[in-house]
């Protein structure tokens, strides 16, 4: 059975796939927005002087990092409704999963970046009378944030690709949309190739955007 490559199939699938790509973007952006908040809070909690607070953040990070995202998604979408009787919409479940998941990794990024700032900076802040919180906000965080950008970019790309796993709970994101097209036209080669190219475009845009942000911060502070 000879294989004919049909470029027109690729072109024809684009409009439908773009709808899926849009969903992928919505889930990625929403998930990462909350994931960053969650990660920043958990990361700072890990630096708390209070052991109990550190422990809570530790349990969160370890639990999420120690279980597959697919299992988390299945549990949230199929498992939890059994117990509480309400099923949240798949899109919301998707955003929650991406947020909770990226948050665990971002927590480690935040903790590492803050710890990498010389203790002299905290001491200098304190000696001019700033509180611990003020020193954190005006002195430590801005410097730490700059150091977070490369690993954050990496995490953003991972999270974007992770959204493809959400097809399992029926989120109409890019990969699932491709799947549905293939179910009808059986052109797996062309369709999945197009899907792959679309993911690549999106991940490259993230890399590009963060590169630009890094450059701007660099120029702004001359370092």
């Amino acid at each position, binding site marked *: 059975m000879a294989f004919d490559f049909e470029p027109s199939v690729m072109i024809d699938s684009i409009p439908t796939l773009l709808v899926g790509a849009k969903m992928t973007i919505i889930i990625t952006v929403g998930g990462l927005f909350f994931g960053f908040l969650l990660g920043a809070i958990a990361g700072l909690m890990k630096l708390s002087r209070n052991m109990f607070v550190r422990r809570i953040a530790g349990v969160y990070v370890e639990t999420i990092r120690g279980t597959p995202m697919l299992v988390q998604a299945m549990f949230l979408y199929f498992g939890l409704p059994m117990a509480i009787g309400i099923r949240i919409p798949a899109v919301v479940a998707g955003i929650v999963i991406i947020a909770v998941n990226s948050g665990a990794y971002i927590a480690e990024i935040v903790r590492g970046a803050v710890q990498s700032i010389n203790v002299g*900076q905290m*001491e200098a802040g304190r000696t001019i009378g700033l509180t611990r919180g003020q020193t954190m906000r005006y002195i430590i965080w801005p410097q730490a944030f700059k150091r977070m950008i490369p690993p954050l970019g990496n995490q953003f790309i991972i999270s974007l690709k992770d959204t493809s796993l959400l097809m399992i709970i029926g989120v109409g994101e890019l990969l699932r949309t491709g799947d549905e097209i293939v179910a009808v036209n059986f052109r797996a080669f062309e369709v999945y190739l197009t899907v792959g190219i679309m993911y690549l475009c999106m991940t490259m845009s993230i890399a590009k955007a963060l590169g630009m942000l890094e450059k701007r911060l660099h120029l702004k502070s001359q370092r």
Partner: protein
Amino acid sequence: MIQIKNLHKSFGDFEVLKGVDLHVKQGEVVVILGPSGSGKSTVLRCINKLEEPTSGTIIVDGYDIMDHRTDINHVRTEATMVFQQFNLFPHMSVLENVTLGPIKVRGMSRNEANKLGLDLLGKVGLEEKAHNYPEQLSGGQKQRVAIARSLALRPKVILFDEPTSALDPELVGEVLEVMKRLAREGMTMVVVTHEMGFAKDVADRVIFIDEGRIQEEAEPETFFSNPRHPRLRDFLSKVVEH
């Protein structure tokens, strides 16, 4: 201005300060000498509670810093510190480094703070560097900015922890010059340094710390011409003069 009584400080089992008593009067310049590791920095850092004293009493500008009700952030603005490593804020311009304290701690308006900041930068000879960033400055310039940053709080006393030790020899003079001027203007200063010339010219009192205790305390004249403690004689013979 500062009264320290029977100050003890341990790091774990290691007792660094074994009962230090020190009084600093308003307008006085006290220089602390001593071998490396003898606890000089620890004394300074206990005064503004960057280190928690193990026991003893420390009164700064009337505030008992061992009392938990004391607002330590306020005490720190009255007894501010200049570090060996400068510790300027690298993401802020020179002027922002100086104005951060007045704006966030003293509640000054930005305009007022900028005026004060430029004034103080002028005083340390760096007005034209106001809009540069710390990494564009030499070590001596950085330390002068750090001094201006401390002055911006209008402190009652400034604690200097080896302010010239991280500097190339040719840059030491410009920083000492600024410090001398402050001393002449009546600023209360506690200075840990190895600059014997500064101690002789500027200090009202020189203190020698060794093995966690003050071993000798005298006016510079007596201190250098007639050292009694054998460890001090040994120490002075090893220090190169500038």
